[in-house]
């Protein structure tokens, strides 16, 4: 078998023999050295030696050319086969790696690969013939989709990032290349879009950046298990103060962060985070190096474990400044009160007629002066209150009180003001008793503020409704007026200092513009919140949510001092 000569080899041998013969004859002739070819002359008398040489050469060249062409064709065929194989491999690799879709020039989906189906979470049948913009984050209005498709229509390749919406509405970030495909006539017939999901890598990048930021934050950051209080993370500042290392951290507990850590006090402070009464709790703690403020939040991590994150900030300087500011405000307030005492005193005495009779016109003037000196006094009081709250100097001795009785008292106390404004207050509640931990004087300040605001904005002869209900884990106090309502644009500023809604209906109303700011801070110090709902032309309801003690704790317990919940 091994010695059998194939037709191919035989053909090659004949060709080479002919070529060699032709070459030998040609060279022999050229060198004028006939090589005993007389025999040939005898055998083929029809041809001269020269003719034989020429024909031999021609045949050699022809055979050589044929052989060469044959070789080239074979080479080409092999190359084509190789290319086809490579292309197949590339396509398989692309389909295995990338998310591919083919659309018509208008974006209608013609086909998608398996990765596309898996990544986008749709059935293939739901995709075919739909517009590709269905997977873009902003649908047909997606700016990137429109820009990319405009570019591919112009015949150019588009590359960039786009944000896609998975069938379950999850956001996916994709690196995307859109290649327009053209037919032989140069007509744009399809777009091939190749995408790579970079959502995870982007998130990882963002996480890495955040971690670097967190690591290097000047404030101390602690993340620890909400049940065991075992440490999970501490940034450089935190580890430096606690003298911990990356290696020692896993064996640490938040209790190791400070020698004065008291577990019982800590658990009491974070209780509002578990009960849902607060999102953040703030402790003011005096440490060896100075005053610090610790803000703590509760969150559930990606594994479903509850974690505390505490941020500790040195507030020594800030507290010093606040104290100095409060001292200044107190002095200024005192200095303003002294002349006001004389002004108001003199006006009251004059108005009373005790120092001599006065005319009606003079009385009107005295009323104006008296009213405005009162207003000045309110501003002075409010500024002082605000500074006291800011400096943490306003004490909140919370004690259990029945809100039903408390609101009845509030209505009685504010009746005088209502009468002045020709507005009445009506209190209604389905509850017989509602115990909450409050600082009565400060809470009355809040109610007086809300009720006087409601009266001020009520129409003449109007009724301001006070309500009390149980809502979730809170008591909700509502104060509703039928006033002009609060414009939407005021929402961001209404609880800020010196905000007054003078121009709602063109009527100017008196007030210091500090009442809601103070009320907000007082309610926060109670672990509650204050907000409102309003409709232009119909009226406004301000509501206060106060934590309702748990059923088995209706007697209420005093909130620890020095803690503010936000």
């Amino acid at each position: 078998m091994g010695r059998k000569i194939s037709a191919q080899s035989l053909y090659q041998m004949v060709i080479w023999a002919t070529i060699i013969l032709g070459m030998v004859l040609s060279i022999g002739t050229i060198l004028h050295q006939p090589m005993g070819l007389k025999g040939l002359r005898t055998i083929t008398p029809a041809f001269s030696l020269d003719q034989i040489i020429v024909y031999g050469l021609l045949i050699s060249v022809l055979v050589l050319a044929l052989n060469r062409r044959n070789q080239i064709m074979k080479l080409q065929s092999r190359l084509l086969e190789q290319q086809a194989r490579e292309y197949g491999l590339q396509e398989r690799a692309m389909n295995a790696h990338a998310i591919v879709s083919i659309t018509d020039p208008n974006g209608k989906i013609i086909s998608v690969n398996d990765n596309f189906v898996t990544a986008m979470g749709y059935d293939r049948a739901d995709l075919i013939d739909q517009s590709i913009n269905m997977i873009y984050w902003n649908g047909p209005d997606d700016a990137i989709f429109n820009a990319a498709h405009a570019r591919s229509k112009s015949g150019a390749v588009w590359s960039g990032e786009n944000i896609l919406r998975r069938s379950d509405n999850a956001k996916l970030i994709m690196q995307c290349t859109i290649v327009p495909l053209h037919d032989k006539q140069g007509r744009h017939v399809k777009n091939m879009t190749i995408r790579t999901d970079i959502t995870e890598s982007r998130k990882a990048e963002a996480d890495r950046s955040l971690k670097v930021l967190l690591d290097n934050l000047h404030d101390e950051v602690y993340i620890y298990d909400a049940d065991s209080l075992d440490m999970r993370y501490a940034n450089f500042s935190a580890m430096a103060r606690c003298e911990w290392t990356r290696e020692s951290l896993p064996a640490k507990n938040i209790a190791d962060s400070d020698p004065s850590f008291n577990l019982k006090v800590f658990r009491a402070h974070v209780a509002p985070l578990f009960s849902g009464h607060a999102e953040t709790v703030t402790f003011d703690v005096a440490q060896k190096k100075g005053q610090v403020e610790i803000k703590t939040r509760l969150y559930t991590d990606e594994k479903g474990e509850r974690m505390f994150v505490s941020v500790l900030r040195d507030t020594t300087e800030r507290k010093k400044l606040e104290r100095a500011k409060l001292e200044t405000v107190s002095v200024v307030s005192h200095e303003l009160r002294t002349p006001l005492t004389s002004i108001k005193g003199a006006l009251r005495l004059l108005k009373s007629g005790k120092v001599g009779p006065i005319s009606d016109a003079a009385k009107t003037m005295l009323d104006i002066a008296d009213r405005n000196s009162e207003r000045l006094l309110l501003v002075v009081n409010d500024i002082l209150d605000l500074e006291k709250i800011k400096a943490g100097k306003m004490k909140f001795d919370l004690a259990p009180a029945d809100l039903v009785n408390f609101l009845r008292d509030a209505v009685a106390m504010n009746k005088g003001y209502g009468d002045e404004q020709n507005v009445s207050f009506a209190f209604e509640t389905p509850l017989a008793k509602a115990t909450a931990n409050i600082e009565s004087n400060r809470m009355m300040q809040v109610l007086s503020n809300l009720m006087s605001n409601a009266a001020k904005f009520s129409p003449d002869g109007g009724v301001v409704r006070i309500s009390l209900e149980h809502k979730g884990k809170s008591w909700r106090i509502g104060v509703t007026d039928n006033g002009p309502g609060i414009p939407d644009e005021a929402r961001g500023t209404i609880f800020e200092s010196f905000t007054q809604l003078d121009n709602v209906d063109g009527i100017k109303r008196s007030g210091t513009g500090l009442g809601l700011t103070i009320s907000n801070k007082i309610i926060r110090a109670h672990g509650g919140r204050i907000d409102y709902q309003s409709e232009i032309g119909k009226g406004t309801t301000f509501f206060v949510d106060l934590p309702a003690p748990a059923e088995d704790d209706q007697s209420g317990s005093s909130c620890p001092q020095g803690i503010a919940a936000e």
Partner: protein
Amino acid sequence: MAELRKVLHVDDDEDIRVIAKMSLEVVGDLAVHQCSSGMQAINEADAAKPDLFLLDYMMPGMNGEETLRGLRQIPGLENVPVIFMTARVQPDVSEALKRDGAIEVIAKPFDPMELCDQLRQAWARL
């Protein structure tokens, strides 16, 4: 308890003294002896023989508390009730003064039409 008749009022602000005098004498029908400083009060208190001290809390030189300490040294005045007036409205100041024996703390600005009633009500509680 005997009726409240005479008040020793100490305040460094002249205008406030005028208002208070008018309030106590004209509105309240009380006798008033006024001094512009703690030292003057200590010097004149014995002769004035008041039923009640009405002292401003914040005064230059001797403040209200120091004035009271001086007045308490005078034989016969050791037990005269005291009411403070203050433009400082912090509750802790009021509480501290009450703990130190004040029967009332009146915030400034006071209402001259009601000052007398406030004094008499505190007096009646004794």
